[in-house]
């Protein structure tokens, strides 16, 4: 039982990373119906920016918590700008063309980011600095261990989710995002600037992916230019599992996938770990294509 709970805790950490990335997939899909395959690579870029910021700031002698916060903010800001730029340059010109054209472009952008990364940073993995000293705590005197990092991750994820929830529910931009997702033409008739709303969506999604990138670096201590591929795909599965287009769905999908995956590999099927995600994807597509929280697709007449 303790072993199971231990794996659950580990699973939640992984799941938080998937959930943060999945949000970007789901929000972008919600608003322009595009699976942004470059999203996992924005996560990678965010991770590297976090790495360099953290190194620089730690060398400057700042306290760890400040290093962490500033690294997160810098990484999220630059990645948000990257997301906006990608949308403007690569996707916006294709908004009126077929979905497959945009999808192929997204795959192209993904390769571009990955191999620009390889070119500039080299293909080998780099060590991510320990921003915070790692401590281990025992839960209620049991043998269940919680790492200080895991607590940080959970806190960061929860805070980001609350901020996101606030933005989407209560701000003018958030309301515009929901309106555009639901009915672009009606949203335009309200006077909503659709281009700017789409930019905001990319900015928020990319910032969340960047935060996931920093968290990933802190957890696994190793980052490389192709690191976005697998988490990107897993997060995509998480978004589909939750119901693509649904924000709570992305959250639940990410956490669910993270825990299931961790439990499965802890049961001795670690070589099946990555397979689980894709088995899940196939099962959803067969049995509940709209996902756990998905609404049935509203076909426009």
């Amino acid at each position, binding site marked *: 039982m303790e072993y199971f709970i231990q794996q659950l805790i580990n699973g939640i950490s992984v799941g938080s990373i998937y959930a943060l990335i999945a949000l970007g997939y789901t929000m972008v899909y919600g608003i322009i119906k595009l699976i942004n395959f470059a999203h996992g690579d924005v996560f990678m870029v965010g991770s590297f920016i976090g790495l360099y910021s953290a190194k620089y700031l730690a060398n400057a002698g700042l306290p760890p918590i400040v290093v962490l916060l500033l690294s997160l903010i810098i990484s999220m800001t630059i990645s948000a700008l990257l997301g906006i730029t990608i949308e403007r340059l690569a996707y916006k010109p294709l908004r009126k063309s077929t979905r497959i054209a945009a999808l192929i472009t997204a795959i192209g952008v993904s390769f571009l980011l990955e191999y620009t990364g390889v070119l500039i940073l080299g293909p080998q993995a780099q060590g991510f600095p320990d921003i915070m000293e790692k401590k281990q705590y025992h839960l209620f005197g049991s043998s269940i261990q919680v790492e200080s990092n895991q607590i940080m991750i959970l806190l960061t994820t929860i805070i980001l989710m609350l901020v996101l929830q606030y933005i989407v529910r209560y701000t003018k931009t958030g309301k515009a995002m929901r309106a555009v997702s*639901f*009915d672009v033409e*009606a949203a335009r*008739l*309200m006077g909503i600037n659709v281009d700017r709303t789409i930019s905001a969506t990319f900015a928020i999604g990319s910032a969340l992916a960047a935060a996931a990138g920093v968290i990933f670096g802190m957890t696994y201590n190793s980052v490389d230019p192709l690191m976005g591929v697998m988490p990107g795909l897993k997060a995509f599965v998480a978004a589909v599992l939750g119901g693509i287009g649904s924000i709570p769905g992305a959250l639940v999908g990410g956490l669910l996938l993270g825990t299931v995956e961790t439990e499965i590999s802890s049961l001795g099927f670690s070589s099946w770990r990555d397979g689980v995600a894709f088995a899940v994807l196939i099962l959803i597509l067969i049995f509940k294509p709209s996902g756990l929280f998905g609404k049935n697709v509203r076909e426009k007449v």
Partner: protein
Amino acid sequence: MLTVQGINVYYGAIHALKDLSINVKQGEIVTLIGANGAGKSTLLKTLSGLLKPKTGSIEFLDKSIVNQSVQAIVKEGLIHCPEGRRVFANMSVEENLELGAYLQDSSSLAADFQRVYNTFPRLLERKKQQAGTLSGGEQQMLAMGRAIMGHPKLLLLDEPSMGLAPLLVQDIFKIIKEVNDAGTTVLLVEQNAHQALKIADRAYVLETGRVVLEGDAKELADSDEIKMAYLGH
């Protein structure tokens, strides 16, 4: 207030509006009637900037709006309440209304809500409810209320009575008249020609993208052509 001259609008190869000209004067209710597919909705979409005419001119308040964005046109006070209501079903009544005031100063928001709730008391009762759960009539009220939140100088209404029970249709037409009496100019598209001609000052009849008849609403209502084609007697 609004002068449309010789516009031609296409959907790809389909020539939907052909050399169409209409005008609307300050304070009027003008109605556009015509069979399904005549081009009524296309005309409204062109006025609000969703569609761009290939040729022709559109002037609103003495300024050309042909090349303006939808957003700029909304800002000028030309508000389009589209066919089929198009409320944001996933949002509350209150949020829908708020979106209608998207370009308005937030200082006038409270007064605007008040005004809309006075006109549509039903919306006040349901303000926290998801728009998707409202009845058809309530959704129409919401769509109109949302349009009113945008401070329309000219309100374009596309088939507001579509699919509503006769009693509700009466209500909707009564409210259109009230909104007009309060100072908003209205361009009303209707299949319900009988009712529309009753409250309108003038009317245009559209057929396959052209204006085939125009004139005083009362006179048109009495004309034999209209009676035969649109009023069913």
